[in-house]
């Protein structure tokens, strides 16, 4: 059977010439569920990757396929399958709610549309279970309008909706950015449980490296529209190779009695070089060579690659197929 989702050399340049994502190849199959985190600074292309994968925007290079069919040319029937198989949870979900409908609508509609329950009561029970699993009280939430809920509550309803549908893939873009640590842990462990028990793949986009390390198996680090480093979380977080990943991990404030959070107050002001490595202007290890050429992904291990000339002794990945690196 063909892959659930297949991104082949997918890139996106917006009108006006803004390159938001460069050539990503990633395959997700139904029989090998994955839990992948995508991290990187603001504007690095994370949401663009999610929107491409969801068919919300068309790639400018390459194709995104759903079970072999080009996502941009699905028939109505296939689109309906896709909408069931692939669920999205977004950063600020306010726009997905219709302000004139009670929030119940976003939960009851999929139950009806995809015939998830045999009776109203069964549907209601499914919805209540999903709400509780993200720390919400059904009696407090149901019957309210979107503007009557906090951002964190609206966010959690979207997670509950994804849980309800039991899709094959959940794309979650900053799904818990507005909630506290305990709730974050609760919600992410329920996603993890879904992944393990139901074989659902999860793409978790986040600024929060510590939760990414805890729940994901693999991690993709984006920097200025390209993959800087990718591989197993243990390797990438514990032994980061790319100087950007090192900066990222070194910048995490630790919960410790030691105050070791020191460093640059302002980034270097120089513009990134056109031809060379995108990180060269901020990189402590940059050489002349880094300004002249763009580093490919060097594969240092089966499950670890870094796009940095410091690893030039490892073989370069010609196809840049990320899936081969990911657990």
């Amino acid at each position, binding site marked *: 059977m063909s892959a659930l989702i297949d991104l082949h050399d997918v890139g996106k340049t917006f009108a006006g010439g803004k390159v938001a994502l460069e050539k990503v190849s990633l395959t997700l199959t139904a029989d090998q569920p994955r839990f992948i985190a995508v991290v990187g600074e603001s504007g690095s292309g994370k949401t663009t990757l999610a929107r491409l994968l969801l068919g919300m925007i068309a790639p400018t290079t390459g194709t995104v396929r759903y079970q072999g069919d080009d996502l941009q040319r699905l028939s109505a029937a296939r689109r309906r399958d896709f909408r069931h198989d692939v669920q999205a949870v977004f950063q600020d979900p306010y726009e997905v709610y219709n302000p004139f409908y009670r929030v119940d609508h976003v939960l009851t509609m999929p139950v009806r549309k995809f015939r998830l329950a045999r009776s109203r009561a069964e549907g209601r029970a499914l919805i209540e279970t999903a709400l509780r699993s993200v720390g919400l009280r059904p009696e407090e939430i149901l019957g309210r309008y979107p503007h009557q809920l906090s951002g964190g509550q609206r966010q959690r309803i979207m997670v509950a909706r994804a849980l309800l549908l039991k899709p094959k893939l959940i794309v979650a873009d900053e799904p818990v950015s507005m909630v506290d*640590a305990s709730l974050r*842990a609760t919600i992410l462990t329920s996603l993890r449980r879904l992944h393990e028990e139901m074989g659902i793949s999860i793409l978790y986009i986040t600024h929060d490296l510590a939760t990414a390390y805890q729940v994901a198996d693999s991690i993709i680090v984006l920097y200025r529209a390209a993959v800087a480093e990718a591989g197993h979380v243990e390797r990438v977080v514990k032994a980061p190779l790319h100087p950007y990943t090192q900066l990222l991990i070194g910048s995490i404030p*630790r919960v410790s009695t030691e105050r070791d959070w020191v460093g640059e107050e302002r980034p270097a002001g120089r513009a990134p070089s056109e031809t060379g490595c995108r990180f060269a202007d901020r990189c402590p290890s940059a050489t002349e060579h880094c300004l002249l050429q763009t580093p490919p992904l060097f594969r240092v291990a089966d499950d670890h690659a870094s796009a940095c000339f410091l690893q030039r002794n490892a073989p370069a990945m010609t196809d840049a197929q990320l899936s081969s690196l990911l657990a």
Partner: protein
Amino acid sequence: MSETILRVERLRVAYDHPRGVVRAVDDVSFSLRPHERFGLAGESGSGKSTMALAILRMIKRPGRIEGGEVWLGDTALSGLDTDRMRALRLAGIAMVPQGSMNSLNPVVRIRDQIGDALADHGVGLKGRALAERVRDLLAQVGLPPDVARKYPHELSGGMKQRACIAIAICLRPKVIIADEPTSALDVVVQKQVMQTLGRVQQDLGAAIILVGHDMGLMAQFVDRLGIMYAGRLVEVAPIRDIITAPRHPYTRMLIESLPSLEQRGGLRGIPGLAPLLRELPPGCAFHPRCPAATERCRSEKPAVRAMGEDATVACHLA
């Protein structure tokens, strides 16, 4: 008793709801020393932003301050008329509100937003004088002078947040309240912005209240931390003690729910749901989720007790 710059005494704030009264800040007291960095953490919806707004008497309907007093030095804020209260905002206590970087006016240049804030407080500067003041303020928050001419959309998140800090410090306040100033930023930029905020605070000799739920940020930045649960300040202690020996079971469980970067596995939130603020359980509001709860916890509301000079706790078992 040690010197204090800000004292919050038995503050109470409620929101009137059709289905009942939400007591978002319930009898909260604490004080801030000059130059101190005080953190305020706790569950989402526990009343942190409400308290920050209440300190500045900026609660809007359906909310109302039900009681309590806030002292800035020797001044009781409830005794001030509207004009004097407005003068005190920014010059005495300044706030960087939650989400402020997204509420900069999109069609006004940064220079004019700073000018407006100054003018609002009776400091009408024009031409050269304004340009100089703006340049100084931008320099203080680590922004280049050309930012003055820019519109918010031309700035990155970190730069916008710095611009908000510049506005907050334009009248050299004695206390800065920053509500989740970095939660929309990535960790690299977060660190840069917090370093700027810390340096500005030192330059001004101001105290700071940092509201947020990133415990790592608190550990690295604040001197003392207050923990809120369901509208109450359930524990206050020096940050070191909170991390190594939390007294309140909620604090302990909150710290245990933090994701480790050392070892995978064991991520777990606090079981149970946060209580409804308009229908709090009797006794201690945390008792339904507390593994150590006793009969007394179910019936008697724990009082806030002092634990030495700079710590308090509201728990029967501590």
